[in-house]
Each structure stands twice: as structure tokens, then as C-alpha cells.
């Protein structure tokens, strides 16, 4: 009896899950069916089809995205065949009459050159081939022709010409958005590079001054500090890869702290608690060091007047599929409203750039759920929490892998 129950449970659970999934997949479009007049219904259908074709195109015009969207676009136009091309090849052919590929490519040079639409007759030896007429509409982004959308039909039709033109314009808008996405990514990459350069001046001057002060009194110490300095700069100036591991980042922080402690001596104390299983976690290059730098500045230099002593604690914990990194200082704290304005980019005081940049980069890499969480108030220190997923597609310490 109990065995039977167990078997039933095991069998029913996957079935329930499958049913739930199927149900969700099938009900979504149907829920539109009961709404409005037939005209409105047709509008809904069209918009729905258009919205389905949009996501693949947002990744740019490639063979894969063209194939995925071509099917939806053909439904949208209701033609026998539809093809998407780039400057020189057919990326995807959806529907019948694929033997016209070369013929169409030959006729495309004109429209691709001048960016104007065209309709022409197709010659075909097969008597029952339904593809007799082709309408070409170029796809343009920023006035440059990227490719063309070709709709094929049995006979000439002004409606089709008009519709094809509209759809091509809509596709062009999607491609423009893809372009925007790309330039946004490029912008953030440029920002990362900017951040790397940004660390240096302030810190380099201070470190060199400290090392210079030891050269006569304690040459051995000066030598060690110089080596630490070399290690740290080597890490922060390295050129390859956008990502690093938590272990490497912590080592860089170690070098950094050694140099800072040489300057502040006993005034700065640091506690470190690391769960060793999160050390291999991959994270954006130099995204914790600025936080520590911020804590140091904030604890010892910032606020009104000098603070006597400051304590910083760095904790890295294992939390399921994420690592939790907490950096805490007992400095003078900060007004939350002011901090909010810094993070929103409205004001940029010294030292605040690091925080908002790290926040931006974490959001860009892991999504908006993974921004920095900062808890602070005047006179209450500051606690910065970063959550780092252990795995994120495209994030790898050996460098970013592009899928194109």
C-alpha cells in the first residue's frame, strides 16, 4: 500500500509539472480571443505576432536571429515565402521556392546600393511554383543599408508592397535598438577601462610618498612595500579579461591594504572572514577593491575632521548559488539621501565615483537584482553588501566568450 502511494507520488509530480507548463503555454494566446470585435481581435493577433518576432532581432541581424524571426514575419505578412538578407547573402528563407535564392540575390544589388524598395517579376521553370513576384524592402540603420527583406507572392499586389515596406521599417527599428544595446555595452566597457585608469593617481602618489619615508629608516620594509606596490599595479593594469576570481581580487585588496597600513599604521585595523568555497567565484575585475578603498577613505579621511581609529571588516559568505560579500567600516557614515544622489549620478564627489561605477557594472553583468546594497546613516558607519552569483552565462574568469 505505502509502496503504491510512493509510486503514485513519483509518477504524479512530473505529470503535474508537465501539465502546468503546457497549460501556461497554451492559454496565453487564447486569452485574447474573447476580447473585442473581430477587427480588434485581428489587431491583437498582429501585435502579438509582431511582439514575438521582435526579441530575436534585438540581438542584431545574424543567420540565427533571422531564422527565428523570419517565421513570425511571414505570418505577419501572410505571404508564400519571405527571406531576410544581409549585404551579400540570404540569411534565412522561410516558406516555399528556395531555388530563387540566387536569382533574388542577383537583383538585390540595386536596392542595397540606393536603399530604395523595388518589386520585380521572377522567372521560374517550374510550372507550379507559387513564387512569381518579389517585393524588396531594404533594412536601414542610421541611413546605412544593412540588408533587405524580400516577400514573394504569386502575383503583383500593391497591398503587399505597402505592407512589406511597413514591416521592413519595423524591423529596421528593432535593428536600431540592437545597435543601441551594443553601443551601451561598449560604453560600459569603456567605463570599466576608465575605472582602471582612475585608481592610480591619488593612490600612487600616497604610496610612493610612504615608501619614500621608509627608504632611509627601514630599507627592508621599503623594499617589501615596493614589491607589494608592483604586485598591485600589475593586477590593476592588466589588460586581458573583464573578469577575475574572488581569490585574486582579495589578493589585490591585500596588497592595497598593506600599502595603506604603511601609511596609517595602527589607526587602521582590518578583519577578514572568508568562506573558502566562494573563493573561485568569478566577478567583474576590480569591483571589490574600490569598495575597500571607499571604506578606508571614508573611515579615516572623510567626514568632518580626522578620525582616530577605524575598523574595516570584509566578509565573504557562501549563500547557495550566490556569494555574499560584505564590506563594513565604522567611520562617520553618510546621509542616505546624499548617497542616493551619488548613485543616481546627480552629483560626483571624490570617492563616490567608485561606488556608482561598481554598482553600474554589477547591474550590467548580473542584472538589476544584483546592485550594491548600502546601509548607512550619519555617525553609524557604512555597510556595503554585494551579491555575486556563482554562475552567470558569459561570465568566466578566462574572459568573456562572445557567442557571435
Amino acid at each position, binding site marked *: 500500500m*505505502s*509502496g*503504491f*502511494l*510512493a*509510486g*503514485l*507520488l*513519483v*509518477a504524479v*509530480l*512530473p505529470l503535474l*509539472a508537465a501539465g502546468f507548463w503546457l497549460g501556461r503555454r497554451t492559454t496565453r494566446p487564447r486569452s485574447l480571443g474573447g476580447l473585442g470585435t473581430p477587427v480588434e481581435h485581428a489587431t491583437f493577433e498582429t501585435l502579438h505576432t509582431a511582439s514575438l518576432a521582435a526579441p530575436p532581432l534585438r540581438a542584431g541581424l545574424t543567420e*540565427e536571429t533571422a*531564422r527565428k524571426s523570419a517565421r513570425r514575419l511571414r505570418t505577419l505578412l501572410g505571404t508564400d515565402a519571405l527571406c531576410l538578407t544581409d549585404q551579400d547573402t540570404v540569411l534565412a528563407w522561410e516558406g516555399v521556392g528556395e531555388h530563387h535564392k540566387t536569382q533574388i540575390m542577383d537583383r538585390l544589388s540595386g536596392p542595397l546600393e540606393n536603399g530604395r524598395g523595388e518589386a520585380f517579376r521572377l522567372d521560374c521553370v517550374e510550372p507550379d511554383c507559387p513564387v512569381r513576384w518579389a517585393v524588396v524592402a531594404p533594412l536601414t540603420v542610421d541611413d546605412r543599408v544593412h540588408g533587405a527583406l524580400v516577400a514573394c507572392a504569386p502575383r503583383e499586389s500593391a497591398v503587399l508592397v505597402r505592407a512589406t515596406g511597413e514591416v521592413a521599417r519595423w524591423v529596421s527599428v528593432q535593428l536600431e535598438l540592437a545597435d543601441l544595446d551594443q553601443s551601451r555595452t561598449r560604453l560600459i566597457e569603456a567605463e570599466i577601462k576608465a575605472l582602471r585608469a582612475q585608481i592610480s593617481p591619488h593612490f600612487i602618489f600616497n604610496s610612493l610618498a610612504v615608501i619614500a619615508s621608509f627608504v632611509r629608516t627601514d630599507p627592508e620594509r621599503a623594499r617589501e612595500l615596493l614589491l607589494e606596490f608592483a604586485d598591485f599595479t600589475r593586477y590593476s593594469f592588466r589588460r*586581458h*579579461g573583464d573578469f577575475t*576570481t574572488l*581569490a585574486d581580487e*582579495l*589578493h589585490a585588496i*591585500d596588497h592595497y*591594504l*598593506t600599502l595603506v*597600513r604603511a601609511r596609517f599604521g595602527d589607526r587602521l*585595523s*582590518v*578583519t*577578514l*572572514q*572568508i*568562506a*573558502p*568555497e566562494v*573563493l*573561485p567565484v*568569478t566577478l567583474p575585475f576590480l569591483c571589490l577593491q574600490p569598495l575597500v578603498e571607499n571604506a578606508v577613505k571614508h573611515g579615516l579621511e572623510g567626514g568632518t575632521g580626522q578620525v582616530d581609529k577605524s575598523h574595516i571588516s570584509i566578509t565573504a*559568505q*557562501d*549563500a*547557495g*548559488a*550566490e556569494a555574499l560579500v560584505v564590506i563594513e567600516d565604522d567611520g562617520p557614515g553618510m546621509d542616505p539621501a546624499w548617497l542616493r544622489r551619488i548613485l543616481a549620478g546627480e552629483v560626483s564627489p571624490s570617492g563616490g565615483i567608485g561606488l556608482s561605477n561598481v554598482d553600474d557594472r554589477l547591474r550590467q553583468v548580473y542584472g538589476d*537584482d544584483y546592485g550594491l546594497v548600502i546601509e548607512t546613516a550619519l555617525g553609524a558607519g557604512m555597510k556595503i553588501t554585494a*551579491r555575486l552569483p*556563482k*554562475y552567470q*552565462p558569459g*561570465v*568566466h*574568469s*578566462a*574572459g568573456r*566568450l*562572445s*557567442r*557571435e
Partner: protein
Amino acid sequence: MNENYAVPAVALVVVATVFVGAFGLRISRTTSDFYVASRTVGPRLNAAAISGEYLSAASFLGIAGLVLVQGPDMLWYPVGYTAGYLVLLLFVAAPLRRSGAYTLPDFAEARLASQSVRRLAGAFVVGVGWLYLLPQLQGAGLTLNVLTGAPKSLGGIIVAVVVVATVAAGGMRSITFVQAFQYWLKLTALLVPALFLVLAWQGDGSPRNAFDEPAAFREHRVVRVDSGLDLKLAAPLNVTATGTVDGERYEDEKVRLTEGVHRIAQGTRLGFTKGDHVPVADRGSNGGMSTSLAEGREDRPLYATYGLILATFLGTMGLPHVVVRFYTSPNGVAARRTTVVVLGLIGAFYLLPPVYGALGRLYAPELTLTGDADAAVLLLPDRVIGGLGGDLLGALVAGGAFAAFLSTASGLTMAVAGVLTQDVLPARGVRHFRLGTVLSMIVPLMASVVVGGLPVADAVGLAFAVSASSFCPLLVLGIWWRRLTPPGAAAGMLVGGGSALLAVAATMAGFPGTGPLHALLAWPALWSVPLGFLTMVLVSLATPGLVPAGTAAILARFHLPEQVSGGQVRTAVSAKEVDA
């Protein structure tokens, strides 16, 4: 069994686990030991952690019970459990680590860039995890029942509560140290009593007839039958009975049982004299972990053995709690070294349970009758050594058994909860890992309470079979075959893993009680693994256009050492892709 020692031992293990988990972080207060604190986990520590997490109740108690009841044939279980890591070492360990994936769904996404394959893999992780958690909870219930006479579901509830409390409250801040500690605890808890037991056995004149068929009583022994059973006698037997035999009531009377089948009612006490052969119990599926799918095995021992070998050899790589541990290794080479050490550690551990099984057959043969064969490990110290020493050793074993439940259960819970929070529950800012933890534990707990007496060693075997038929094709083909496509992977997992799961369900429901069909369903790995591979290959070949872009680069990353694949090779790979 003296509970005055056993209960404090179990409590001590629980407290120690929580303590090591909460305070096992590396803490540094001066910069000089900063380097120590941020040192990655070495192969030896990580291997101990993997072993600690892997050696479950089925290993600690179940194998001894299986050997006791069914003899040396059952040694295939420890061999299979260990050899799984050999396959893992050869084909999977280093590439899996280099893929950067934390869980199996992560691997599916990294390799195939498909959200739907990821979700499917997640579903199978949850399924395998739950199938594997069930025997852990039942084993805990059995242990507590043997130790204190508490109801059988109580132990499972205690383990569930402790695990959920520590995992959900973020108490397991450093699971590596906890699991490594648990491994050494488990090894000690089996090794020390085993030494004493072997000494006692030598003092007894080293009797060697452990596996003579059938086992015989070595002294006068009264056996209490906890649940009704049918005795199958090959020869007449004289017993002293108190209770009901064949429908007749006896009160401490001598009964002569003739050849054939006799019905013994629940609660009956049977007294056997020295030298009596232990009668064979003919029971349904009402026993503990060791009652196994005996019928199918007796019908087709060769088929069953091969099914077992295939499931355990190939299933280990798909166990969700094992896979996540490899992430702790800093790189692929370290992952491989870790696996080698794991092989050593697990191999050493698995030498011990068969010793208990053999000694159990000598000194506690009546366990085959009462259906509590899994308790052999727990009962032997008291039975063989006795006195205070026996009690203390028994307490040590009990503590080790609880360490086994806690470590495996917490590892599985974390793995299942991770998948649930990432892929199933809706994300709301801070993802609710706690809800996932509770959810991942409550389902197997309910199942273990509702379906009390399930043949549980089989649940482990079946979890292995499902894992071998779904994840093994995904991992092996994903790592070694560049033409794998997302639809192929999904179809292979569904057909292989799904058919294994259905076979599991049919077996648990007791659908065909006997015959070749039963053997096929009870040991599905032998046909479901090839089926999974075949489906994956054929569907992938049928959809050549859907090979994910960048496959060559990803495979290069899987197979090249990290230092190489960092910079220059990537350009070479992309040049190759242009050619293709």
C-alpha cells in the same frame, strides 16, 4: 543498545555540526595571515568534503545490511559507489570545473545556451534530489527507532528540522569544513568499533563460515518479529514460540515447524537454539533499507548486477550535491586531483561496511528475519563486545550514522534549494533561498512520513538510475561531442531520465510483482541509459542547424587548461570557426 550513551552521542554530533558550520570560517585579524585566509580549498580538504557529503545512510548502514541479508553479491554496491568517481575523473571532472558552472542546470546553459534545457535539467535535479533525500530521512528514523524506540518518523523529522534550520538560517557559512569533519567522523565511527569487533572475532576463534548458506545461530537467541512474515523452511525446525504461529496461539511452548511456509504473526517471539539455521523470510516490501528488490534480483541476478553497475558507475556524476562541490576547486587540474583523493577516501571507507555485514551474519543472523538488517552496524558492538565498551562503541556508531544523515541531507537540500530558488520560484529582489530550503525538505519529509515502509536502498539505487539516464548523457555528450543540440539534449534527458523515472514509479507502486518485466523496471539503468544516449545523439543529428553558435570556443574552454585558454587561444578558435 543503551540509549544513555547513544542519545548524547547523537546530540553531540548535531551540536558539533552546527558549531563547525557556524564558526568554521577562516578569520584573519592581521594582514600577515590574510594570505592564509584567502587561500583556496586544496584537493585534500575538498575531497574530504565531497566524501563526507557523498557517504550517506545507504553507505553507512545499508551496505552492511545488504551484505548481511544477501551475502557477498552485494559488494557490487560499494564497488559501484566508488567506481562512479573513476568515470567522473576520466570524463567529467576537469571540463565541468572549467565550464564555470555551479550546478547541472548551469552546465546545461553554459554548453547549450538554452533556457528550456536549463529548466529541464533543473527539474531533474529536483527529482533526483528528492529521491535521494527520502532514504536519508527514513534511515534517520530507523536509527532513532533502534536506539530509543521512538516512532519511525521522528528521526527523519529531527534531521529535517536540523538541516532546514542550519541551512535556512545561513548557519552553514562554511560547508566545506563541516563536510570534511563529517567524513572523518564517519570513518572513525566505523573504523574504531570495527577494530574492536575484529579483535573480539579473533578472540572468538575467528569463525570463517560467515557466508555459508544458510546462516546459522551461534547461541540460543530469542527473536521478536515486529511485523508479520512468512517463514520458508527447507527442513523441519524446532522453535520455542510465544505468540501466534500459523494462526495458533502459543505461550512459551516448543513447536515443531515442518518443511514449507509458516505464517508468523506480528509481535511473536521465536526462540532458536544454537546451531539452528536461520529460516528465510518471505516478505513483501515492508522492511528497512536492505530488503531490496529481492525478487527481481533472484530471478535475474546477472541482469540485476549489470543494471546496478551501470547505474552507480554513471549515476554518480549526476548527483546534484556532488557536482556543486567541484566548484570549490580553483581550477580543472585541482578538480581532477580532488577526484583522485576522493577515490582513495571513499575506497578506504567502503572497506568497513562489508566487515560489519559479515560479522553481522555471524553474530546477529536473526536480523534477516526481523527486517531490521540495516540496524546491524548499530547493534553489533553491543552484541559482540557488550558491557560499557559495547555501549560506548555503539554510541560512536550512532553518532557516525547521524553524521551521515546530516551531511548528505544538508548537501542535497542546499543543491535542491539552489535550483528551486534560481529556476522555479519567482525572483523578488533578494531571492528567497529560505523558502526554497523549506520546500526542498518538506516534500521528501511528507513522502517519508506518508509512505513509511519503503524499500529504501532501492530509492537510492533508483535515484542513481534516473541520474545516470538523464545527466550522464548530457554531461558526457556535452563535454565530448560538438554536434549536440539543445533539442537533442532535451529529448535525451526526457526520454532517458523520464523512462527511468516511470520505471521507478512503477516499481515503487509494485506494478508487476514478478517476472522479466519486473526485473526490467526494477533495474532500469541497463536500458534507459543507452536509450538516453541514443535519443540525444539521433535528435541532435536530426537538427544539425541548431548547434549553438560558439560551440567550438566553449569546448576549447572545457578542455584546455585555464592558463592557456585565457588569451591567445581564443583568437585561434574564432579563426577556426570562420573556416568551418
